[in-house]
C-alpha cells in the first residue's frame, strides 16, 4: 500500500502554481509578485507563439551556432574500455557554454514585455558574459551582480562583460559568491520594478523561471535525441550532466525523462569532501528549504541559515539547486552523485590530452563520473554526457592548482 507513486509522466511539471511536488513555488516579496505574474502571463503566450519560436530558432542557428555537434569520443571510449561515450558539445556555442540558449530566450521575452534594462547574477561569469552578450546584441543597458570573491577569481570574464558594455557590480555582502549576487540582483529588481527584466541564469528561482529556463535549455536534449538516433539508430543507455543550479542538466535530461530504461545521472560538486563544509552537494548533503523564490534542497544549518558552498568550479558554487531536480531526486527518476574537486581536475586533464578538448571545470565533474561508470558498462552501451562549457575561463584556476605561474 505504501508503494511510491510513479507519475504517468516525469515531464508534466510544474503544476499551475509552479510546484514540482513540494518543490518550486513563488516565495517572493509582495513587491515582486505582480512582476512575476506578468512574466508568467507573457511566457504562457510566448511558449505557444510560432513567431517567438521562429525568432528564437533563427538566433540559435545563426548567432549561437546550433545545433551543437554530438561527438563520439572514440579515444576516450577506447581508453576506458566500456560504453560508447558521446559528448553533446554545447561548449562550442557562441560565448562558450550552454548559458546562451537561455539568455536568447529570455531577452526575446524581455523585448516582448517592453522592458528597457537587463539585470543578472553570475558566479563564474559564464551567465554574466552570455547576458552581457545578448544585451549588447539587442541594445539594452545591462547590470551584472557578481560576488567580490568571484570577481577576483574570474578576472577574464569580468573584463569580457565590461567589453560587452555591461556594468559589473561587485557584491561584498555575505561571502561574495553566487548566492549573494542573487540576493543583490533581487534587491535591484524590487527597487526598479517598472523597467527592469531580471534574467536569471539557471533553472531556479520563483515560478515561472524554472520551467522557462528548462524549456530554453531543452534544445540540448531535443537535438541530442535526434542526433543519437541518426548516429546509433537508438536512444542512449545513460545520460550524465553536471548540476550546479542545474540548467544544462535539465536541458539534456528533460526530453528523455519518460524513456524507460535510460539511466540518468546528475553530478554535484563534492568539493573537498562531504564530511566537512567545503562542498556544494545540496541534493546529497542538504535538505529542503526556501531560498531565492523556491523550495528546493539547500545547504543549511539546523536553524535554517543558508551555508556557503565550496567548489573548485565557481559555476557549481551555489548552495541550492533547481526545484525540478529536487523533485526528480525524490521521485527516484534521476540519481545524483557527488564528485570531488580532485577527481574533476583529473578528468579535466585527461580529456584535454586524450581528445584535445579543454572542458570547463563544471562538465569535468560529469566527466569524472563517466570515467567511473563507462568501464563497468558493456561495449554496446551508449552514454551521452553534456559537455556544457569550454575550459578557457578555467586555465588560470587550473594552472594555479597544478603549480604553473601564468
Amino acid at each position, binding site marked *: 500500500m505504501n508503494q511510491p507513486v510513479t507519475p504517468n509522466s516525469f515531464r508534466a511539471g510544474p503544476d499551475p*502554481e509552479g510546484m514540482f511536488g513540494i518543490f518550486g*513555488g*513563488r*516565495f*517572493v*516579496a*509582495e*513587491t*515582486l*509578485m*505582480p*512582476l512575476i505574474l506578468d512574466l508568467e502571463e507573457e511566457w504562457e503566450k510566448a511558449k505557444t507563439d510560432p513567431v517567438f519560436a521562429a525568432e528564437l530558432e533563427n538566433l540559435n542557428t545563426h548567432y549561437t551556432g546550433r545545433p551543437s555537434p554530438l561527438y563520439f569520443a572514440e579515444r576516450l571510449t577506447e581508453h576506458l574500455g566500456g560504453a560508447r561515450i558521446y559528448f553533446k558539445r554545447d561548449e562550442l556555442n557562441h560565448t562558450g557554454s550552454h548559458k546562451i540558449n537561455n539568455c536568447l530566450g529570455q531577452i526575446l521575452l524581455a523585448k516582448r514585455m517592453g522592458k528597457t534594462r537587463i539585470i543578472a547574477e553570475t558566479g563564474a561569469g559564464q551567465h554574466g558574459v552570455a547576458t552581457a552578450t545578448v544585451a549588447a546584441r539587442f541594445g539594452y543597458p545591462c547590470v551584472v551582480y557578481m560576488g567580490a570573491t568571484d570577481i577576483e577569481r574570474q578576472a577574464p570574464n569580468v573584463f569580457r562583460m565590461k567589453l560587452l558594455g555591461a556594468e559589473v557590480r561587485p557584491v561584498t*555582502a*555575505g561571502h561574495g559568491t553566487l*548566492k*549573494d549576487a542573487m*540576493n543583490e540582483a*533581487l*534587491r535591484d529588481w*524590487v*527597487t*526598479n*520594478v517598472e523597467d527592469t527584466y531580471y534574467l536569471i541564469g539557471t533553472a531556479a528561482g520563483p515560478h515561472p523561471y524554472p520551467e522557462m529556463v528548462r524549456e530554453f535549455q531543452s534544445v540540448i536534449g531535443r537535438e541530442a535525441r535526434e542526433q543519437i538516433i541518426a548516429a546509433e539508430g537508438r536512444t542512449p543507455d545513460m545520460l550524465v550532466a553536471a548540476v550546479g543550479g542545474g540548467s544544462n542538466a535539465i536541458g539534456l535530461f528533460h526530453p528523455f525523462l519518460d524513456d524507460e530504461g535510460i539511466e540518468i545521472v546528475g553530478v554535484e560538486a563534492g568539493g573537498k569532501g562531504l564530511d566537512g563544509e567545503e562542498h556544494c552537494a545540496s541534493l546529497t548533503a542538504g535538505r529542503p*528549504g*526556501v*531560498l*531565492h*523564490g523556491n*523550495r528546493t534542497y*539547500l545547504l*543549511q544549518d*539546523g*536553524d*535554517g*541559515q*543558508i551555508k556557503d558552498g565550496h567548489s573548485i568550479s565557481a559555476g557549481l558554487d551555489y548552495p541550492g539547486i533547481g526545484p525540478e531536480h529536487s523533485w526528480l531526486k525524490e521521485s527516484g527518476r534521476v540519481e545524483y552523485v557527488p564528485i570531488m574537486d580532485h577527481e574533476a581536475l583529473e578528468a579535466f586533464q585527461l580529456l584535454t590530452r586524450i581528445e584535445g578538448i579543454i572542458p570547463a571545470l563544471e562538465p569535468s565533474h560529469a566527466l569524472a563520473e563517466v570515467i567511473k561508470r563507462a568501464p563497468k558498462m558493456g561495449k554496446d552501451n551508449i552514454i551521452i554526457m553534456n559537455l556544457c562549457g569550454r575550459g578557457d575561463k578555467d586555465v588560470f584556476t587550473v594552472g594555479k592548482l597544478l603549480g604553473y605561474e601564468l
Partner: protein
Amino acid sequence: MTTRIDTLFEKLAGEKRPALVTYFMGGDPDYDTSLSIMKALPGAGSDIIELGMPFSDPMADGPAIQAAGQRALKGGQTLAKTLKMAREFRTGNNETPIVMMGYYNPIYIYGVERFLGDAKSAGIDGLIVVDLPPEMDEELCIPALKAGLNFIRLATPTTDDKRLPKVLSNTSGFVYYVSMTGITGSALPDTSRVADAVKRIKGHTGLPVCVGFGVKTAHQAQAIGASADGVVVGTAIVNAVANVIGPDGKMTADPAEAVATLVRGLAEGTRSARLASA
C-alpha cells in the same frame, strides 16, 4: 479572536493618534543586549514591537538590516532564542503587541506547527514573513490564523487595485504598507503619495494601515502619521545600535539607551501627527 494588536488599535482610535511600530533585530549584537533593547522600547513610546528574526539571506533588506542580521547570527542567535527573548520580555510586559518579522526558511526548518505553538505560548501576537505572498498562504498564513496569531501582509506600490483584495484576504491585525518599491532603509518618497496610497488601501479594508520603509526621523514619522494608523521605523533603530558598537566589537555606549533616545523622539513625532494635520 481579539489579539493585543486589535486591542491596541481600538485604544489608539479613542486617543486619535497613530501607533509607533518599532523594528529591531533579535540578538543584535547579542542576546542579552538585544533583550535590554526590547525591554526599553515600550517605556520610550513604542506601541508595537517588531522582533526581527535574523536570516542569512535577507533579500528585501538594505545594508543596515543585513548587517544587523549578520551580527545577530555571529552572536549565536537562532529562532529558538528569538522566541525565548519574547518569552522573557513577556514576564514584565503583557500589553505591548509583539510581531515577529523575517523570512520563511528558519520557520520552515523549525517546523510550522511547532513554531506556531511556541510563538503563541511565548506571547507573540502576529507574524510578518516577507517571502510568503498570498499565493503561498497554505504554508504558514492559514495555520497561523488557526493558531490565533495575526498574519500581517505587506502591501506595496505594485499591489494594484485588482490585486489588493487578494493581498488583504487573509490579512489580520494591520496592513503594512511598504512606502516604496525597494529595500528597507531607502529614501522615503513624497509623503503625499504615501497618503494617497493609504487612502486607496483603506478603501478596500477596515484594518489599520501602518506605513514603513524609509521612515527615519521624528519629522517623517509625524508626516506619515498624519494619514496612516501607524508608522514603522526599523533601519534607524538598527543604526542606533550599530552606532554604539566600536570597531573592536565593544560597545561605546548603552545600546538600549541609544535606541530609547531615538524612539522617544519618534514617539513625540508620531503622537503629534494628528495635531499637526488638524
